[in-house]
């Protein structure tokens, strides 16, 4: 009964979305307030029905109602409650339901909180949002109904994929989807602007908070996914340039570009056409990501099932929305009037450069990710494009971008003095050079990682310099500095923090890739293996039984310079219901570094294969992402963004440091 309620609620949501795709749009064209107002009812109602549908499915899982196919295939009565809930989206059908749930919630939020939007723009935005929603409701109902029943209910479910039985599943997919789907708002705004043929600085101010929110969630979602893969897959890597990872990185990159170009548009009314294009591309890449992950063209952790009709359906949605939006763009964009002029050396110029590098870097990832698929479709030849390709293309394009990052926020709008800015970054250069020197002294050759450390420190010190300059620290008396720091808009703090986080992540990436230690050995009980200043003593293995698995746990005593600092207990779990096993790595955090042990198979002679890593600075990779997230959150809390009220240009000029 509950499942039928959920199914029916979804059908109702589809009906509401169909209404919302037309009525407000027609209202906006005829200037009919009543018709436009329908969206204010349908958008929250849609969200309510999808939420009802989602809750129904969750109840089916909680009650272990195995007459529902999706529950039978992905749940087990013995599973802990938390996994029963997370397994709702640990499968294709449920995860698509989560996708539309977030989509409909975003639509409802726009209708509820964007009361200061011009009425016609708001109506058009909500209509466009409903097109996307309707397409995906239809997709779920036609090809992936999560509420399908089995004629005869089995006694026990087939269990959730063991790899997914982890807390990561509770955070990673929802965060990622908040990001992916959040960009649909920017998309709807862009398409609405094209339909209206009108766009101004206020538009950018409306779009920016939504884009920022989506970007923040995507940042955290990607970082969380990376950390999850790191500790769950058991071989110590945190990024594999896997097509699915690329699918999430691409919208993140273009979304980052969009955030920056929207600033230019808001402050200077320039780059309008470009900003619109980026807004369309960002969501298009989110759709491409959904297609890659959900259609079964790729084989990965994320592709749950490969039913060809689904692939074709998503591909159709993809073509209609991306093709349609781009065609609309080609037709209407020339109508948009050009905005303010600026010299190449200026804040705008720096942001253009930022966009150029980010979008190009994203394009190389796009080629690397889709080329194998295209080649296979055309010639039948199967190839794989791996990490070497991306390191060779993405790296060289991202390094110049990082070099420019500290300059950007210090440059003045319109026309800037590059020599003056370089002078102000003097301190940052010194920090970077000290970093290079210290790294070389400690680690010796090769030079490249040391330069990388220098670059990371330069980005971080540059962000600090930005704040120092804005508060006149070192020049003005402390009281003035405090006044200025208090008066500094939160978005300035946000920018500095996000850039700082970028440097932090880079530091971690260099540390992990350059100075990781790895040993793979076979050990018998009481045997010892040493790596760097650490000793690992294998105390023995024992068996344990968990709620729905059995595990073999190996106990290691870890010593650092002969002193015992703790034990590590990696294990291997076997899940009888699926006949599969997983490796549970054991981690020990030492400052910002980690020790990592994962188990291999047991040899006939009783030796146990183990893989031991020492990963210096590895935590910085994810901490940097968290710092970026906090920066975004600070920026989002800036009153100017929330209120969206026009702000006198003078206040900004006063904020600029005296030349």
């Amino acid at each position: 009964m509950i499942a039928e309620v959920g199914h029916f609620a979804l059908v109702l949501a589809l009906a509401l979305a169909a209404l919302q795709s037309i009525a407000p749009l027609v209202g906006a064209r005829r200037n009919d307030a009543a018709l436009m107002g329908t969206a204010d009812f349908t958008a929250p109602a849609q969200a309510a029905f999808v939420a009802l549908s989602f809750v129904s499915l969750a109840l089916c899982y909680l009650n272990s109602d195995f007459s529902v196919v999706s529950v039978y295939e992905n749940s087990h009565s013995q599973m802990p409650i938390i996994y029963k809930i997370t397994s709702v989206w640990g499968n294709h059908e449920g995860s698509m339901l989560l996708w539309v749930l977030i989509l409909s919630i975003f639509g409802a939020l726009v209708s509820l909180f964007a009361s200061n939007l011009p009425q016609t723009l708001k109506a058009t935005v909500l209509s466009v949002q409903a097109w996307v929603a309707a397409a995906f409701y239809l997709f779920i109902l036609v090809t992936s109904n999560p509420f399908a029943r089995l004629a005869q209910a089995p006694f026990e479910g087939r269990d959730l994929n063991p790899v997914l039985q982890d807390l990561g599943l509770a955070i990673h997919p929802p965060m990622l989807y908040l990001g992916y789907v959040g960009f649909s708002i920017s998309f709807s705004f862009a398409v609405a602007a094209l339909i209206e043929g009108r766009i101004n600085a206020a538009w950018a101010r409306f779009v920016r908070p939504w884009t920022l929110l989506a970007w923040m969630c995507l940042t955290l979602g990607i970082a969380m996914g990376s950390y999850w893969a790191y500790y769950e897959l058991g071989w110590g890597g945190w990024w594999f340039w896997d097509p699915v990872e690329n699918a999430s990185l691409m919208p993140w990159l273009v979304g980052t570009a969009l955030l920056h170009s929207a600033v230019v548009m808001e402050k200077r009314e320039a780059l309008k056409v470009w900003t619109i294009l980026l807004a369309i591309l960002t969501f298009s890449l989110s759709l491409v990501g959904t297609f890659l992950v959900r259609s079964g063209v790729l084989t990965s952790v994320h592709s749950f099932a490969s039913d060809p009709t689904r692939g074709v359906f998503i591909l159709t949605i993809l073509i209609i929305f991306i093709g349609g939006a781009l065609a609309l763009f080609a037709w209407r964009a020339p109508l948009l009037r050009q905005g303010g002029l600026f010299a190449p050396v200026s804040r705008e110029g720096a942001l253009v450069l930022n966009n150029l590098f980010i979008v190009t870097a994203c394009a190389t990832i796009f080629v690397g990710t889709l080329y194998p698929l295209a080649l296979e479709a055309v010639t039948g030849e199967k190839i794989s494009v791996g990490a070497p390709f991306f390191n060779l293309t993405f790296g060289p394009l991202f390094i110049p971008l990082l070099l420019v990052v500290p300059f950007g926020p210090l440059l003045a709008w319109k026309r800037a003095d590059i020599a003056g800015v370089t002078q102000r970054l003097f301190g940052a250069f010194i920090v970077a050079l000290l970093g290079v020197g210290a790294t070389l002294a400690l680690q010796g050759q090769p030079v490249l990682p040391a330069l990388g450390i220098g670059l990371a420190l330069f980005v971080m010190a540059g962000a600090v310099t930005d704040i120092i300059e804005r508060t006149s620290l070192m020049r003005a008396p402390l009281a003035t500095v405090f006044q200025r720091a208090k008066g500094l808009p939160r978005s300035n703090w946000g920018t500095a923090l996000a850039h700082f986080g970028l440097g932090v992540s880079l530091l971690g990436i260099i540390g992990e890739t350059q100075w990781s230690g790895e040993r793979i050995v076979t050990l018998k009980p009481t045997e010892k293996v040493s790596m760097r200043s650490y000793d690992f003593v294998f105390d023995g293995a024992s068996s344990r039984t968990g709620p729905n698995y059995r595990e073999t746990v190996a106990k290691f005593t870890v010593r650092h310079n002969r002193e015992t600092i703790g034990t590590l207990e990696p294990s291997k779990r076997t899940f009888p219901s699926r006949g599969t096993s997983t490796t549970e790595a054991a981690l020990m955090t030492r400052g910002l570094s980690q020790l990592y042990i994962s188990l291999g198979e047991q040899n006939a002679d009783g030796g146990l294969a183990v893989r031991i890593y020492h990963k210096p600075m590895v935590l910085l990779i994810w901490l940097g992402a968290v710092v970026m997230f906090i920066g975004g959150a600070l920026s989002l809390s800036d009153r100017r963004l929330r209120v969206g009220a026009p702000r006198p240009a003078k206040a900004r000029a006063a904020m600029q440091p005296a030349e």
Partner: protein
Amino acid sequence: MTRKQRRLVMISAAGGVLVVAAVLVLTALRDSIVFFNSPSDVAEKHVAPGTRIRLGGLVAPGSVVRGDNLDVKFSVTDGKDTIPVAYRGILPDLFREGQGVIAEGALDGAGLFKADSVLAKHDEKYMPKEVADALKKQGHWKEESGKSSGNPAPATPAGPKS
């Protein structure tokens, strides 16, 4: 600076970056892509020793021999041809005889495939798409075994990080 000059500067900067990107992509594509082959592809195409390829097929039943020091030998078959593989390291959780596997590495002069990474991905009903396609080509594909129901197990790569 006039609008025209500004546009010129922007377009040339964009053009420059794009050219650099295109050159990077083309060189990287030439040097770093790896072709997927089934054992019979290897036989037909006479893949040269030393060329990096991905070899996919089923782990031949009874072929897995574990040696000292994490050395492992097994054979990959697609029903028509069989190629012996040598690997040192920890095999993924899902590696099993009779199941699908992808090994990446190169052939040596004697026809032994030296793998530096091994990927296995299946549960009892599932295998990598590449392997399934290759097996279909050889006519060793049972439709019911290929139909995946529920979650396929994930790819668990093993071997040195690439």
